[in-house]
């Protein structure tokens, strides 16, 4: 059997023993509905996880920064799940209504200083839709 034939055989085996789970495929198909046509995208510009590891064993919050033209969203994530929390900051500081999109949707509010808190850490991918005065900004999907 030559290389190409062997690779074809592997492909059959993969399709048989490790196919894309159909429910997962369905979530990707349905994701089309999550298009945010009206929203400006805030791209992930900083993630503390991609920084070189510091002192071993030291538990630090995960820091994420998203940039859109005219708006920065900073997130500080401590712990995980129901025991954790997400503290956010809009820069420049401003009030906003924020929808957390994901497996457990939530409605959050940023105060006049641009601060907001979510008392759980979302499991699974999430995105924040920030409704500002005159604009909507959505953060890039991330999983923490």
């Amino acid at each position, binding site marked *: 059997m030559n290389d190409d034939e062997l690779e074809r055989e*592997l492909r059959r085996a993969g399709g048989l023993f490790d196919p894309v789970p159909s429910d997962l495929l369905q979530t990707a198909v349905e*994701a089309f509905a999550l298009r945010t046509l009206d929203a400006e995208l805030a791209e992930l510009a900083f993630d503390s996880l991609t920084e070189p590891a510091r002192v071993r064993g030291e538990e630090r919050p995960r820091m994420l920064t998203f940039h859109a033209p005219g708006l920065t969203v900073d997130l500080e994530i401590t712990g995980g799940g129901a025991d954790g929390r997400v503290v956010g900051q809009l820069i420049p500081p401003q009030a906003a209504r924020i929808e957390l999109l994901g497996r457990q949707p939530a409605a959050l509010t940023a105060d006049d200083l641009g601060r907001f808190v979510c008392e759980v850490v979302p499991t699974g991918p999430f995105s924040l839709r920030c409704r500002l005065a005159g604009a909507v900004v959505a953060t890039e999907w991330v*999983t923490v």
Partner: protein
Amino acid sequence: MDRDSIGILFRAAADGDAAAWKSLVEGLSPLVWAVVRSHRLTDADGHEVYQTTWFRLVQNLTRIREPERVGAWLASTARHECLKVLKAARRVSPSDDAGTLDRAADDHTPEQAVIESEEAAVEQERVRQVWQAFQDLGENCRRLLRVLMATPPPGYQEVSAALGLAVGSIGPIRQRCLGRLRVLLAERGVS
């Protein structure tokens, strides 16, 4: 799925065509899944990376400049998400998920229906042996071959994006890994 059809589907999806998006997802999901599976994450983490990757593409539908290269874009996005998950897991709770790849498929595929017929039993056994031998390969070979196994066969640009390998190094590594697989199969009496 060839580059031209990917480009056409992508542009249609960016213009709001949900059917084109569905075809794109069906056509490129095996590649995204293969990248996820080549990184040995837990099932739960793997599912999240797969979803995050597609959610990201939805957000970037109108921003990607080269629709023909969306396969490589997906592969690269999935890889980076996998590496982040692995890094986070090492920091919080080191766990070995060697068993992850051993689980049987939890879905009924058309291929399964075919091989359930009796005359295909021998063929099924052979494919099982190939799968088993693949899992007994070393980490590096398993990663490369798992990506190459995607349906339709990924291009080297996509493999390069999936694994962070130079395009020129893929051919020789592929040849070496398939050679090792052949040796394992021969040792087990599978020709």
